[in-house]
């Protein structure tokens, strides 16, 4: 069990970084989608949801192509002296990309049309668009935003397919909980996988329960 902790802590850390990167992007995507004409919104929604429905290995392959030294982004990174593939940064990229749709979709619903009415109302009361967003839309939407953040973080904790393709499975460097479980099972050490599986369940279950409690407390404060 003691050997499990470094992997657990590394996984939590990577998922936190990926989630933190996704928050402003998902917020921007949700606000942008809300202001688009309906037909463009459908295309935009489909685009941002792609990682949710594509095989994770397909997403991993595309990321690999993009980030390799022959890929568009990889070339730029190489010129800047930045190595991403098969480093912890690759774990962050893979988990961020794979968990983004869950967060973006939750944010879109939380900041949906009912919020739009109330922010319009705030504007008639003298609030600028940004003041209306921060004083009205955001405080009302926070339970939905929080749920999206927690869901995306849990998804990042469990990410496997894209991560193994662009970060590899290097113990002590890029190995996450999901990758460690896979390795133990592949090498016939199922007993060593059990504590990691139990920890995965505990972490995700705990995070979802905590967010539900926070949301309930928020709802009660409005009564």
């Amino acid at each position, binding site marked *: 069990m003691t050997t499990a902790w470094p992997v657990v802590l590394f996984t939590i850390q990577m998922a936190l970084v990926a989630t933190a990167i996704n928050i402003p992007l998902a917020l921007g995507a949700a606000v942008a989608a809300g202001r688009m004409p309906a037909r463009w919104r459908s295309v935009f929604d489909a685009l941002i949801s792609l990682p949710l429905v594509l095989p994770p290995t397909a997403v991993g392959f595309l990321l690999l192509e993009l980030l390799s030294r022959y890929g568009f982004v990889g070339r730029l990174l190489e010129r800047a002296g930045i190595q991403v593939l098969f480093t912890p940064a690759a774990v962050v990229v893979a988990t961020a990309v794979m968990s983004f749709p869950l967060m973006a979709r939750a944010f879109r619903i939380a900041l949906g049309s009912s919020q739009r009415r*109330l922010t*319009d*109302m705030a*504007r*008639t*009361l003298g609030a600028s668009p940004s003041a209306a967003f921060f004083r009205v839309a955001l*405080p*009302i939407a926070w339970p939905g935003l929080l749920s999206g953040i927690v869901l995306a973080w849990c998804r990042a904790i469990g990410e496997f397919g894209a991560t193994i393709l662009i970060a590899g499975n290097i113990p002590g460097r890029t190995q996450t909980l999901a990758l460690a479980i896979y390795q133990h099972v592949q090498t016939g050490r199922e007993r060593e996988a059990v504590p990691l599986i139990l920890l995965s369940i505990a972490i995700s279950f705990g995070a979802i329960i905590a967010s539900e409690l926070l949301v309930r407390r928020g709802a009660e404060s*409005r009564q």
Partner: protein
Amino acid sequence: MIAIDLELPTASFVLRVELELRERVTAILGPSGAGKTSLIEAIAGLRPLARGRIAVDETVFLDRARGIRLAPESRRVGLVPQDGALFPHLSVRKNITFAGEDDERFERLVRTLDILPLIDRMPATLSGGERQRVAIARALMMRPRILLLDEPLAGVDLELRDRIIESIRRIRADFDVPMIYATHHPLEALALADEAVVIERGEVRMHGPTADVLRRLKIRG
């Protein structure tokens, strides 16, 4: 005076309204889907597709020819929609003072609208009638150039209707603000408005003193 020369495409028709409103309270009468809410929201600046000209006294809200389109926050228009649209995360007091603090005006509004016992409550705990009175107070708090009431009695039971009508009458007597009152109910128009405009499918069909308009409506059946 409120001058409106407006064209606004909606989902089912193009709203075309040309009006000069000179009375204190104007009722916009029409069935559901006639374009009343579209007109109200265009005056408030919430319909970006609105074209034409809208001015309240000397302040021009919209003038396409001169390239003027004031943002909603610059129009100083008090809007009271059907459901009140109170902010659910703020207490009644904070809803009313959303646009700014003014103790004297706050006290006066709370007294006039009889909402003193409600000020520390959250919107979720209010009845429909209470919500509407709070929404009226919130809209008046910022000293609007015009007060727009969009079917404020829709969904409110009969007993509460009389109470809200009485509140609006008191506002009319105590606060110097022109009002546009959208309704599909002729008796509400008669109780509150000096002049009435009938809109059907986005076009003005009648305009004149409320009693005259209602008489013509009755004759037409």
